[in-house]
Structure formats: C-alpha cells, structure tokens
C-alpha cells in the first residue's frame, strides 16, 4: 500500500477549502443582473384557492413579477414527477395526483407553493409576498395515516379517493401462512418509524439563468444528481431540451437524500429566468427547509415472526403503512416498497416472507428517501423483532441471531435479493468481544447501585447498496437505469482529470477517487482532479445516493482506466520499440518484459498527444477514455452494532455509554473517510432514536419547524464510537467495494431501542425516545422493581 493509494488514510483534499470557508456553494453564485425569488407558501394544510390577488404586490418597489400556477400552466410547464411506478396487488398502477410546481386551485400541506415573487432584492420580494392576498376555503387536514384511510376522511387527491396510492405486496403469502400455521412461537410487534426532517447544513438553493443569445438555460442548484435533474426538467417538465439546459451542482453541503429530488423551487427559478429576462435566485431559509424539503421515514408497522421449537425462524409477516405526504416526490414510491421489503430477510435465513405496504396520502410535506431510504425502516422491523423474540423464548439475543444467520453464499432470500458474500458470525463475534458483552451483567449491577438502569442492544443490519442493475430495477418499475459513467482524461504532461457522474456532497470523492487513480496509474494524487456536478462538462451520469459512488461510480472509473492502460501500452510499445504483448505496466512505469527498457506514465501521455512515434492512422493520438458501468447485483454491506446505555429513571435522560460498530464494507479505499461515514451515520441513527421527530398537529401545522422544537443530535448526545471492520470482498464489482454511506443510520436506531427496552424491562418505548418518553416508560419499570 502506498501512502496515497487504495487503503491509505489520506486526508481529504477538499477539506481545506471547506473548513476555511472557501467552498463554492450555490448561494455563493451571483449572476450579473440577478433578481431574487421568494415563494408564498400555504399557511394551511389543506385548502382550495378561490382567488389570488397580486395587484398590491406588483406595485411594491423592485417587483418584477408575480407568478402563480396559472402562469406555469399557460406556458405548458409540466408538473413534478415521481419516477418509479409501483403497481398494487391487483395490478393497477399507483394513483399519483398531479404535482404542479405552483399550486393550481388547491394547496395540500403547510409550505406548499402558492405563488412566487421576483424582485430586485430578496427583501423586496419578501415584502411584496406579504402583500399577495389569497382567498382560501380551508378544508379539513389529515395528518394521521390511520385517519386518512377511514371512510369519510378528507381526500388529498381526487384520483385516490381513499388516500391510498397503492396496496403493494411482496413475497409468498401462502408459504408464509403455512409457516405460521406450524409455528411453535409467534412474536408480534407494533412499531412506528418516526418522521424525520433531513436538515442538511446547506439549505436548498437555485439560480436560474437564461441566455437569450444562445437560447439556453443554466441552472445552478443543490443537487446530488444534476444529470437526473436535467433529464426531469427537460423530458418531463419541459423547461428546454437537454442540449439547451445546463445543470450545475457545485459544492453541496450535505444531502442525505433530500437533494436527489427535483423540487418546485428550482423548476420555477429556471423557468422564470426567461420570463423576467434576468437570472433568478432563491435560497431556502431554515423554516422553508423544515416545511418543504422532502421528509424521511414515517411508517406504522405490524410485524410477526414465526419460530419453531428450536428457535429457528420459519416465517415473517409484515404489514406497513407508509406516509407519502401530500404529493409523490421524485423517488418516494420506491422507498417503502422496493427499497424496504427486499431487506426484510435481514442477515437471516428466513424461508418465507410476506410483506404488504400501503402508501398513504396525507396533508403533510412529501416523504422520500433519507439516508438509508427504506433499509433503516426494514432493519428496525427485523432487529426489533429478533430482540423481542429472543427475550420471549428466553435465549440470549446474540445467540438467537447466530442460530438464524445466513452462513452459505450466495443466498437467495424469498424477497428478491441474492446475498453474494458475507460472514455475519465474524462481525457478531468481533463486536461482542469489542463491546465486552460478557460483562454487561456486572455493569448493569454497578449502574443499579447508582439508581440507573443499564441496557445493551444489538443490531445486526444488512443493506442493499450500490444501486443498481438497470434491467433489474427497470423490471421493478424504475423509470431510469442506475449505471454510472466515467471519463478519464490524461493530459499531455501526465496529470489526470476524472469526469464522474457521481456527485460529492460530503463523501470525499475528490480524495478517494484520486487514490484509485494514483494506485492504478502511479501518479501522485495531487496530479489528479475530480470533475463532477456540471452537465456541460461531464457525460450523462446518475449521481450519488444509496451508497453507490464507490461500488458503481468507481467501477466505471476502473473500466475507463482499463481502457487507458490498454491504449497507453500501445503508445509505450511504439516508444520502446517493442510489441504490445511484451509491455508491462507497474508502479507508473511501462517496461519491456525481460529487459531494463522502460518509460514512465507522463512520458507516454506526452507521446500519445504529440504522436511523433506512431502513425496516426494506425493508432489514434490522445489518451482519453470513457466507460459506463452497469452493476450485476446490489452490494450487501452488513455488520453488527452494539449500544450500551444508562437511563436515569428520575429524569428519563438516556446516556449512551459505549457504542461498538463492526461493519463489513468489502474493500476499503480510505479507512479514515469510511470511519467518518460510519460516525456520521450513527449520529443520525441516534438522532432518530433519541432526539428527532417531526410532529404535525391535527390541523396540519408542523410543530417542529425550527431547532427550538426539532431536536438535532449534538456532540454531547452521542458517545465516542468504537469502530471495527471485518471484510468479505464484494464479488460483483472490480474493486470489491460494498459501500458505507448509510450503514450507521440503518444500524443505529434498533440498537438504541433494543438497549432501552433491555434497560426498562419492557418493549413499550417510542422513537424518538426523548427524556419525557423514557421517563413515562420508566414508571412501570420502577413500579415493577418496587413490587419485587
């Protein structure tokens, strides 16, 4: 291993500019003559719009225009789309209501877009927005999923009269019923997966800029996938054809899924830039981020696990209601279906699984993918069930898991996925050792002496990452392929530019991708630059989400590098006056087998461009190659996290005492960056378990619309992490990578709740397990202890 190649803990190249305030984010972009947009948002969760009177607003100083849904419709601007078709059990397509970028006749959640004001300054636009008079007829809100599906509930979209987008299912119902019929023990659990607000540090922003000379648009936007944004804005929304629309996603300050989607604001800004003849900028304030970024999670689930008399799992039955909010966001339909139920087998050999999922409309913000996207929800169901089942049959939870682990690979689950490689026992054993699991009893007694309740919880998670084989997801309803692209441009002096369809918004691609190139071509990482996030520079690509940039994005780079090496060998053969077949490439040098004749990589690059040593008709000059990589399978990162915590039953305060994480991510490019990803993921998972929860009241007002009421985890809420690794190589990509970006957020919530319920001695504690909730839950524990 070199100091900067694959496997080295290289410091992140991008951090200097980020931590010195020299990053270049969308809000840092100011175009000449730029105007500012402010969106008038609905104060009501559900209302019809009778009339919008903008006459007073239009007279305000600096105001250029006020646009409403009618203006978009008049220009034939299409609505926002959901790009994954889900079919119900009966074969009928999902019932997707129209999703106009600006409301047309009706608003469906607090924060929904009613109109946009464009003015010389932000302050003027904001002043003017307050002068728009909207005549609403307020309709009853419905925020609770169980209420939404009752007859007579307010109807969010006429197309779905029972507020149900789909009744979807997966698995073999008859086989699962048969498994339960012969079960010795059945564990049943009702659980809620709490709604989260993504809260990227950088709020969403957009600058639309129309060039009248070229008749083309440029959109600067906070996107995890600028090419997908361009595709949707072109092909579906109809802003402009793709060659007349450039989308640039510069530095992006965190996405966590929420910046995958194509939202109303960027659509309106880019369209309006032509209407007003000036660039139009919008940057969300934090309240807008709370109200109108797509939220995450929000499931209600009943699950049952069937066991035989030896504690082996026979079957699993899951029924989930998933809140999709008021409109179907870009990938929302897939999250509680194909990103969820196929993970319900966990790390376990489960012969029969049947899952039913109802997608529900409510008058709340749209819900879509958020770090983990479906897989945290699945893991929460499986790992809570495993823990409770072990407790019910009186078996140690670690041993119970071990007994049911998948041990032979490849393993075909009953729910689509074929696990290709793993060693679940190895991760469990290592985690138990690192966590000093055998002495938990002793530590519990010590805590009890101090009046504290100590608990330990295991989470053995699995995720499907590296999304995904295009034909496979196509057969499941995806509207796009999920390959990735790369182009490698070697410059004449041997420096290298990598153009990648992946997008970095915190992941450290500028470092890890350069490490790969350094390892392959023997050039220093400082001689490698990573170009991403600009549809005019980079070939079509699919972007970053689902822990795919390593497994899919880097595989495309490897494929392009293979072509570079092959071409460079041909050039080297001319330079060294040898046959292609005799050229070897190692440590940045081309040499002739069995001789001391060699030439270094930069010299070959130069020769490729000056083309003096070969005939340009026999070999094309230049050294530039591109590749597309379409994966052959998902990847399956898996691991074991163990949470140990103490509860103060007097206040309900939970303190996490120790956290052990043992993950199998396959091959690792940069262990420091991977560990950082694990830390961040766990912090988000602990946030979900102990702190975060979006709460709407019955009128559909978001009560947690600021940091005064929405609890983001802070440094003192999370422990120091004890992180370890096991490794089985991923067989389905050239680097053997599985992906690491979402693992912590997937693993953590059940580990915390399993530890809390262990400490409390009963299963009844909700997420987020705030001090208030834990104090309530501890009352029965205290009463029981007093009785004993």
């Amino acid at each position, binding site marked *: 291993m070199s100091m900067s190649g694959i496997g080295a803990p290289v410091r992140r190249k991008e951090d200097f500019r980020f931590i010195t305030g020299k990053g270049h984010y969308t809000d840092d972009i100011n175009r000449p003559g730029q105007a500012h947009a402010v969106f008038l948002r609905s104060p009501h969760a559900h209302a019809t719009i009778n009339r919008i009177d903008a006459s007073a607003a239009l007279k305000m100083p600096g105001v250029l225009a006020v646009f409403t849904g009618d203006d978009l419709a008049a220009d034939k601007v299409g609505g926002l789309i959901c790009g994954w078709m889900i079919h119900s059990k009966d074969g009928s397509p999902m019932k997707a209501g129209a999703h106009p970028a600006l409301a047309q006749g009706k608003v469906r959640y607090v924060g929904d877009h009613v109109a946009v004001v464009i003015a010389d300054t932000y302050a003027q636009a904001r002043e003017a927005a307050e002068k728009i008079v909207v005549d609403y007829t307020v309709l009853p809100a419905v925020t609770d999923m169980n209420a939404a599906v009752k007859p007579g509930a307010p109807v969010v979209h006429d197309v779905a009269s029972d507020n149900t987008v789909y009744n979807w299912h997966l698995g073999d119902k008859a086989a699962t019923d048969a498994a339960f019929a012969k079960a010795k023990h059945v564990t049943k659990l009702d659980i809620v997966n709490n709604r989260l607000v993504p809260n990227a540090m950088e709020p969403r922003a957009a600058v639309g800029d129309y060039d009248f000379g070229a008749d083309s648009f440029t959109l600067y936007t906070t996107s995890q996938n600028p090419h997908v944004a361009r595709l949707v804005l072109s092909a579906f929304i109809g802003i402009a054809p793709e060659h007349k629309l450039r989308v640039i996603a510069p530095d992006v300050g965190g996405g966590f899924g929420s910046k995958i989607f194509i939202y109303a604001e960027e659509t309106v800004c880019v369209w309006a830039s032509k209407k007003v003849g000036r660039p139009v900028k919008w940057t969300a304030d934090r309240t807008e981020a709370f109200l109108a970024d797509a939220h995450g999670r929000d499931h209600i689930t009943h699950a049952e696990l069937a066991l035989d008399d030896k504690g082996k799992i026979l079957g699993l039955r899951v029924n989930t209601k998933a809140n999709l909010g008021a409109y179907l966001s870009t990938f929302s339909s897939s999250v509680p279906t194909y990103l969820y139920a196929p993970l319900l087998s966990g790390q376990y050999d489960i012969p029969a699984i049947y899952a039913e999922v109802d997608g529900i409309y409510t008058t709340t913000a749209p819900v879509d993918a958020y770090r983990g996207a479906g897989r945290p929800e699945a893991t929460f169901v499986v790992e809570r069930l495993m823990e409770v089942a072990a407790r019910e049959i009186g078996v140690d939870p670690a041993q119970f898991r071990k007994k049911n682990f998948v041990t032979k690979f490849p393993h075909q689950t009953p729910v689509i996925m074929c696990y290709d490689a793993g060693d679940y026992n190895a991760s469990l054993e290592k985690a138990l050792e690192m966590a000093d699991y055998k002495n938990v009893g002793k530590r519990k007694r010590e805590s009890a002496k101090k009046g504290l309740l100590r608990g330990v919880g295991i989470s053995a998670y699995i995720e499907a990452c590296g999304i995904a084989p295009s034909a496979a997801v196509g057969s499941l309803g995806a509207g796009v392929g999920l390959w990735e692209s790369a182009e490698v441009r070697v410059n004449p002096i041997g420096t290298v530019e990598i153009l990648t369809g992946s997008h970095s918004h915190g992941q450290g691609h500028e470092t890890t991708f350069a490490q790969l190139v350094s390892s392959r071509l023997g050039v220093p990482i400082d001689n490698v630059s990573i170009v991403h996030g600009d549809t005019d520079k980079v070939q079509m690509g699919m972007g970053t989400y689902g822990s795919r940039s390593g497994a899919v994005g880097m595989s495309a780079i490897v494929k392009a590098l293979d072509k570079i090496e092959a071409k460079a060998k041909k050039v080297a053969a001319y330079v060294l006056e040898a046959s292609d077949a005799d050229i070897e490439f190692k440590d940045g040098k081309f040499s002739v087998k069995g001789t001391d004749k060699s030439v270094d990589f930069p010299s070959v690059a130069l020769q490729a461009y000056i083309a003096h040593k070969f005939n340009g008709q026999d070999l094309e000059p230049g050294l530039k190659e591109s590749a597309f990589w379409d994966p052959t399978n998902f990847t399956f990162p898996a691991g074991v996290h163990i949470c140990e915590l103490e509860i103060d039953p*007097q*206040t*309900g305060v939970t303190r996490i005492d120790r956290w052990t994480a043992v993950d199998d991510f396959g091959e690792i490019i940069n262990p420091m960056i991977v560990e950082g990803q694990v830390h961040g993921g766990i912090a988000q998972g602990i946030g979900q378990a102990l*702190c975060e929860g979006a*709460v709407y009241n019955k009128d559909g007002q978001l*009560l*947690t619309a600021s*940091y*005064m*009421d*929405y*609890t*983001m985890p802070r440094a003192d809420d999370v422990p120091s992490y004890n992180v370890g690794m096991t490794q089985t190589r991923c067989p389905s990509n050239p680097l053997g990578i599985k992906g690491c970006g979402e693992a912590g957020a997937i693993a953590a919530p059940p580990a915390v709740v399993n530890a809390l319920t262990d400490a409390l001695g009963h299963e009844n504690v909700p997420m987020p397990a*705030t*001090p*208030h909730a834990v*104090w*309530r839950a501890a009352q029965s524990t205290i009463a029981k202890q007093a009785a004993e």
Partner: protein
Amino acid sequence: MYPFTYHQPENARKAATVAGKLEDAKFLAGGMTLLPTMKQRLASPANLVDLAKCDDLRGIEVAARSVTIGAMTRHVDVANSKELQEAIPALADLAGMIGDPAVRNRGTIGGSLANNDPAADYPAAALALGATIVTNKRKIEAEQYFTGLFETALEDGEVITKVVFPIPAKAGYEKFRNPASRYAIVGVFVAKKGSEVRVAVTGAGSSGVFRATKIEAALTAKFSSKSLEGVKMPAEGLNSDIHADAEYRAHLITVMAKRATDKAK
C-alpha cells in the same frame, strides 16, 4: 426584518429620555430574543433604543450583604466574576448555564429580566433570592415584578438600571433543559437565608416563574434533599407541550429541587 429607526444613547438617563419621546420604542439590550423575533417578522418596533453604549449600566458590585449587577452586564461576565463566585456562587453558576457561549457573550441580565421569558433562568434567581429590580423610576421587589408570561411591572419607557441580590446563606440552581432549544423545561433555584427558604421555579409554570411553597415548607423544616423525598408537586397550572406534559414537569420540579439543594453552597 421590517425597517426601524435606530438610536444609540450614551447613558441610561438619555436612553430613558429618548425612549420617552418616541412612538413605539423598544430598548435593545443583548438582543438575544428581540433580534431573532424581528428577523422572523414577529416584532416590528418603529424605534430601537440600543443600550450598548450605556456604560453606566454595566458592572458587578459586591457589598457585605448584597450584590448589585448592572442591567447591561452580560451573562459571561456574571458567570466569570470572581467576587460573585464567592458571594453568590449559585448566581454565577446559573449565568454560566444560560444558552450557549454566543448567547452568554451577548445576552444581559437586564434584557433577560425585562423580557421575562417563562423559560429564562434569571427570573428564578431573582424571585428565590428576593432581588430588587431597580429602574430609572423606582425600585421593584421581585415578588411584584414578574406579572405573567413575558409580562413585568415595567411601564412604557421604564428601563432597568440594576438588580440588587441579597446574599443568601446557601443557594443552588439546577435546570432540566429542553432537548431541542435547551431552554429550561424546569429550572429550580433554592435559597436559604436565615431560617427562610425560598424556592423559585422557571420553565414549568403557565404564567411564568413562581414559588414552590410545598418545597419551601419541606426545606424550611430541614434544608436537605432528603426532606423532599415523597414531596409531589401538583401538575395544575403547569405547561404541557410536545416536549413535556404537566405531570412530567411537576415531577421534574422535585427532582431539580433535590439536585439544587444538594448543590447549594
């Protein structure tokens, strides 16, 4: 933020005069509440009278029986005052627990008391220690000063100049923070002076800071957290919100009172 006219007088007397002549004027102290409220367009005073240049409103003086703190004294200065840490350590401790470093470097004792946020910390200290709030017009006993949520006995144009705290024999403050905002869900200040024990509770009451007479009685009998075993505070009159219902707040009052008593010195 809506437009406003900004004034910056150099002393308290001028500040009161300026404010007295203006329509719809607000005093600006540290601005830790007023400015965010204005930014959110929830407040729109026509005139803002900034007290930042009023040096006569700053400073801490420790005498034999009392401590006097100027209204514009920042939390960080109260927290770090060596003399105060000797005289009333609980008060310095409380100031160090307010908000975060940014807030403590801007926020002031006078601003906090004038705003009387029901979850602010200083009102509990003022009430439990029997402080006197001195204004440009008069002296107001703490008992008469706090009149409701964000309501005080201050009249229009009246500005707090200083606060006088009698030095207790022992005092302690403990609070349970809102997990999101980190304001007090319940904050309890206990103070013993001679045979009298006064206990003030912030964060919990639906009409702001109040004295917990049940706890005062128990601690008057014996000033020990053991005296509070089994003392149950009533939930009536306490706040309920998504972070804590009234029953939880009632319970926390006793728990925080015990911890404040254990800490008291």
